[in-house]
């Protein structure tokens, strides 16, 4: 029985191929839409085609006449279901009541109005088309700046100014900083609305067992336990009667860090009809109804001395919220404020956020969530300041970097940066591209009439989100580690990985700590009936918090292992290492499997010790972590077409200790490409009537393999003191560092024409027009 292997070779830090892959490469993994069960019904949702309208009447009769239709529900049927929750608690925040189905009015294209339930998904769709909704269209506003001008159509009639909240933050003495400045640089900078576009759309299967009073929701989410708590509240169901199972999740990027109307709606339907029901979001619905990201208009002012020292940063941030608050909608721009100073020691800031309702789907967390916007802002401003002072962009950054001996460093925004060596990744990136020689080449290129650009960003992040006081839903994470009677190790993590590879990295850590083989470790997640309460996977937190919780649970177990080992060896002087407990006097040893068996058999117990080897840890991090890095992008622009060619992309990241370089590189690549998507191609466009005109993949430009460059990755290592693994998080780094480096490069290429700023996305049309007009916007 006891076949657990012992080993001494360390796995942490090795390029180990992933343990979750066999099921994924063979097509045997189970995503929500793969779930079948007897009597399964299918739901199809009727959604508003208008950006704003009154609902005059709904005729559901034609739908009910379809053979196979089991039920149709509209807003008044679900009125008693609680509202879609908003987890934010900003002072004075206006929170519209967010019914799961529209009542008498719709607020954005895609707003759910009715739901048809049928025995077959084709019938459900046919019947949904037959429902007649009589709308009286109303004026709409989708541009957040227009929405706060006088006379704009009110999104919510009760708040005609369209302002959901104002938020103000001051740090240091901003007025003094601006009074003492030699130079002030100003710029309006936008971070356009983006569509997260996980390859798997959302989906829910709900099953109600009336006899057990038990509801099971299979849902594609990043936060199964939060879904359980909040959907149970919405449905008025006892929390312990709701089980949430997160099967395989096909990408999230923040878009599944939420509680959605459809999760409660499917639970409601299953309880009403007594049959299991499945809803799978169409891609069109995913684009119109799942949260979007970004949506900033930022007005920056930076005050500096002649030598490039930044004295103060002012930001007026207009956040496009959409029509409602989803779970974290109003919180996201506050993260931008926290990140405002970037890697620079400037101690004076002022930020004003205006949160604005628009007739559009809500914005919320999308990869980076507030930090890409802030990084884009400060990194663009550093280049603008460098240009103003005729300094090299590298020099101005070095001038302002927080010094290595200044950590932990208190920022003007109230953060405490954990550790840093900001020049290290910059130096490495500069060396990789041969920066000095490159600037010489650029001179020659310009002399030849070519538009060559060199751009960089030195970015910081707030990761491992986060300490509970700073996080709306609790910022700790949990782990239970069980050493089974056979010595096999089961790790149950409260995280909910969905591509990040923690079934592998956690197993590496557990195997090293316990001295067992990696195949002896199983990492389990995503089922609230099996796994202790947890928070989930987002904000580059999985390994930095969830991994730390596992580490501490293992340390507790190691103490217990030593007690049982001591009992078996008849000595109090024992060491546990490499999977065996050894008597330090006699050299006699017992392997873990034998200790585990003895702990469960419990013929004898050590003093004050319970049987078994199970430990649970809920770990509250003392701080965020603050990864950083430097990206350099070399571009060349075709004058005839405006097309941008990325000649080189160098990404040097410092995410602290690296558990698995293969996985870290994959995270950086994926992050960079989502950043490239924002910088170059992607934009959610609503027209003035509230139609999403980028409503399909045909119109929304998700990066393809053929239009992205080779990404050269590299790392420096500055361990975090915040957690015992020394890790900082890497999921969002690529995205956060990317967009300013690209835009800085393109602006640099066009600077001979007098261009000083361009808003994203940098489409060829935009660039071509700039070139045609000699650089004038």
């Amino acid at each position, binding site marked *: 029985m006891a076949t657990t292997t012992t080993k001494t070779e360390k796995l942490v830090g090795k390029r180990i191929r992933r343990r979750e892959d066999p099921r994924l*490469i063979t097509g045997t993994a189970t*995503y929500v839409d793969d779930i079948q069960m007897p009597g399964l019904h299918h739901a199809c949702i009727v959604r508003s085609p208008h950006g704003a309208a009154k609902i005059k009447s709904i005729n559901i009769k034609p739908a009910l006449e379809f053979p196979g239709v089991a039920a149709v529900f509209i807003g008044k049927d679900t009125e008693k279901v609680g509202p879609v929750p908003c987890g934010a608690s900003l002072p004075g925040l206006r929170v519209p009541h967010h019914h799961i189905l529209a009542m008498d009015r719709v607020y954005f294209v895609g707003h759910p109005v009715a739901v048809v339930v049928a025995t077959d998904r*084709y019938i459900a769709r046919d019947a949904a088309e037959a429902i007649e909704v009589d709308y009286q269209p109303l004026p709409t506003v989708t541009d957040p700046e227009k929405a706060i001008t006088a006379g704009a159509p009110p999104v919510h009639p009760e708040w005609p100014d369209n302002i959901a909240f104002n938020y103000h933050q001051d740090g240091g003495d901003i007025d003094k900083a601006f009074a003492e400045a030699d130079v002030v640089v100003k710029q309006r900078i936008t971070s356009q609305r983006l569509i997260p576009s996980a*390859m798997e759309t959302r989906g829910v299967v709900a099953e109600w067992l009336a006899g057990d009073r038990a509801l099971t929701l299979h849902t594609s989410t990043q936060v199964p336990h939060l879904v359980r708590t909040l959907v149970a509240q919405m449905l008025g169901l006892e929390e312990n009667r709701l089980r949430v199972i997160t099967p395989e999740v*096909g990408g999230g990027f923040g878009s599944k860090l939420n509680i959605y109307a459809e999760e409660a709606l499917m639970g409601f339907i299953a309880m009403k009809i007594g049959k299991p029901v499945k809803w799978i979001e169409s891609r069109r619905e995913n684009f119109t109804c799942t949260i979007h990201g970004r949506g900033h208009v930022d007005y920056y002012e930076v005050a500096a001395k002649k030598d490039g020292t930044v004295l103060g940063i002012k930001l007026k941030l207009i956040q496009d919220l959409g029509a409602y608050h989803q779970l974290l909608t109003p919180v996201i721009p506050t993260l931008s404020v926290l990140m405002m100073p970037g890697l620079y020691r400037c101690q004076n800031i002022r930020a004003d956020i205006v949160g604005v309702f628009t007739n559009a789907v809500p914005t919320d967390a999308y990869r980076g969530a507030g930090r890409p916007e802030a990084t884009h802002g400060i990194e663009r401003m550093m280049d603008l300041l460098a240009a103003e002072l005729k300094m090299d962009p590298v020099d101005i950054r070095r001038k302002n970097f927080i010094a290595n001996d200044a950590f932990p460093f208190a920022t003007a925004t109230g953060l405490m940066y954990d550790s840093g060596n900001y020049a290290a990744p910059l130096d490495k990136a500069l060396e990789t591209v041969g920066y000095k020689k490159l600037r010489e080449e650029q001179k020659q290129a310009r002399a030849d009439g070519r538009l060559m650009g060199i751009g960089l960003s030195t970015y910081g992040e707030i990761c491992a989100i986060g300490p509970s006081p700073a996080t709306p839903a609790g910022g700790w994470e949990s782990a239970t580690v069980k050493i089974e009677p056979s010595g096999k190790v089961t790790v149950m993590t409260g995280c909910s990985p969905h591509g990040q590879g923690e079934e592998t990295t956690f197993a590496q850590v557990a195997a090293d700590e316990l001295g067992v083989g990696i195949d002896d470790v199983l990492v389990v997640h995503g089922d609230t009936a099996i796994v202790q309460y947890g928070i989930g996977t987002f904000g580059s937190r999985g390994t930095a918090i969830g991994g730390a919780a596992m580490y501490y649970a293992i340390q507790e177990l190691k103490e217990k292992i030593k007690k049982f080992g001591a009992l078996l060896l008849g000595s109090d002087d024992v060491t546990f290492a490499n999977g065996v407990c050894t008597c330090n006097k006699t050299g006699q040893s017992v392997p873990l499997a034998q200790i585990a068996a003895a702990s469960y058999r419990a013929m004898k117990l050590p003093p004050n010790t319970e049987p078994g080897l199970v430990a649970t840890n809920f770990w509250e991090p003392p701080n965020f972590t603050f990864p950083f890095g430097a990206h350099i992008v070399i571009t060349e622009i075709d004058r005839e077409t405006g097309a941008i060619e990325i000649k080189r992309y160098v990404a040097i990241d410092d995410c602290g200790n690296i558990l698995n370089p293969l*996985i870290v590189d994959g995270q950086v690549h994926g992050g960079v490409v989502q950043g490239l998507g924002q910088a170059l191609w992607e934009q959610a466009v609503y027209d003035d009537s509230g139609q999403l005109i980028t409503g399909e*993949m045909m119109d929304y430009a998700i990066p393809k*393999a053929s239009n992205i460059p080779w990404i050269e990755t590299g790392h420096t290592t500055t361990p975090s003191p915040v957690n015992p693994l020394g890790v900082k998080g890497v999921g969002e780094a690529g995205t956060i560092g990317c967009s300013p480096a690209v835009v800085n490069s393109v602006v640099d290429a066009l600077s001979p024409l007098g261009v000083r700023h361009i808003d994203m996305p940098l489409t060829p049309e935009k660039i071509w027009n700039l070139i045609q007009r000699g650089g004038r916007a």
Partner: protein
Amino acid sequence: MTRSITLTINGTKRTDTVEPRLLLIHYLREVAGLTGPHIGCETSLCGACTVHVDGKAIKSCTMFAVQADGAKVLTIEGLDASGKLDPMQEAFWNEHGLQCGFCTPGMIMTAKQIIERNPNPTDEEIRAGIEGNLCRCTGYQHIVNAVRSLAVKA
């Protein structure tokens, strides 16, 4: 109105009665029980539903099951039918060519066709070859590495 169709799927012949409007992807997933191919966009743009029909990689979300009547269909589940992983599956595993895995079954079927048609593709040819398959996680670089690792050097 229904029609009877007969297909050979992953080497096994089967006959079913289907509605003419039933999409091949729904037939494979819900009638034949092969949930490896996925539905990502319903419009032929993302490629998550890619399978081989008579040896050609096609997007099964925009083909009717009745159009595949008489055809030989190969899905991701057919690649390791012998109990051994296909070299392309192994390559994706070795090179970390997947993260969430949702696009992977379609991506592997397309990648196989690239190598079948051109045993020694350049990186550019690999990227052009998979441009009909979207991946939101990997940034494609490890996928390119995976396909390149199987290239037969001339």
